[in-house]
């Protein structure tokens, strides 16, 4: 009577570009929700973005609730 044993070998090496993509997502998302004070929209709106604070106001409640310093 023959017995067969199955051994699954997995490759877990992570491509560097996948880590890079996720690292960028991490940094950008953290900045948007936790720290932006008009910086991102200032690229389009100029100095006015620092007065309008659209992203700051949109993420305001989450900033407080997640523990980020807000104002």
């Amino acid at each position, binding site marked *: 009577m023959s017995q*067969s*044993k*199955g*051994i*699954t*070998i*997995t*490759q*877990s*090496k*992570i*491509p560097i*570009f*996948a*880590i890079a*993509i*996720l*690292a960028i*997502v*991490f*940094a*950008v*998302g*953290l900045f*948007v*929700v*936790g*720290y932006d*004070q008009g910086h991102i929209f200032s690229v389009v709106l100029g100095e006015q973005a620092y007065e309008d604070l659209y992203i700051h*106001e*949109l*993420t*305001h*409640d*989450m*900033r*407080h*609730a*997640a*523990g*980020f*310093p*807000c*104002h």
Partner: protein
Amino acid sequence: MKTIIFLAIVLVSGALAGTIHGIANLAIVEPYLDQAIGIENQNLFASGEEEDTPRFWVEYDAYRDWQKGGQVLAGAILGTSIGALFGIVYALSRHVLPQGNDLKKTFTLAGVMWLTLFFIPFLKYPANPPTVGDPETVVLRAILYLSFIAISGFGTVGFYQIYKRLRQNTKILAFAGYAAFIGTVFVLMPPNPDEISAPMDLVNGFRVMSVVAVSVFWVSIAMILGGLWHKFRPDAENPDVRN
């Protein structure tokens, strides 16, 4: 490694867990935010900066509805962000996490990251509701908070390297070392420079609900990523079955 599957399940799990976090905030944190902003409004009326008129309240309600909706969107963005970090660390550390299925591994890692990247920093720099916080110190507070999180996170990685090199019966020294390290950092880092001007029952209630909601996020992401990883096996691109 099935890279596209890996990226997809990491980003989806983060976005879903973050959305759950945003909804949890709406349910349990939002009442404290409304109460704190109500105090801000009363201060505005008292100082004469705003008038207590029907028009004010119409504009205020529309503005707050927008912010509350934004909270769910912000939850999805923040969840995707933290989920990306969680995915990187999970993929790199999965083979050294405790034996068992993926759920056991993701919950273990989520517990470690919750403790070192959220809860311990929270004990030093706890969340505050609106009305607490001087706009002049926001950059300093942001730097302090982010620095503490980074120090705790890199400290954890460093002491894990020590943990790996220790013999089985002395591994506890790595935990003790991290505790001593972060305890020292805790004492040496400057405190939040702002005074708390809001009622303490409001502040404490807000902080408790903040911890509960963030914990909901970490439980959610462990559950979702663990389940998706188990189902799609992104690390088994070329299974080589030998008989």
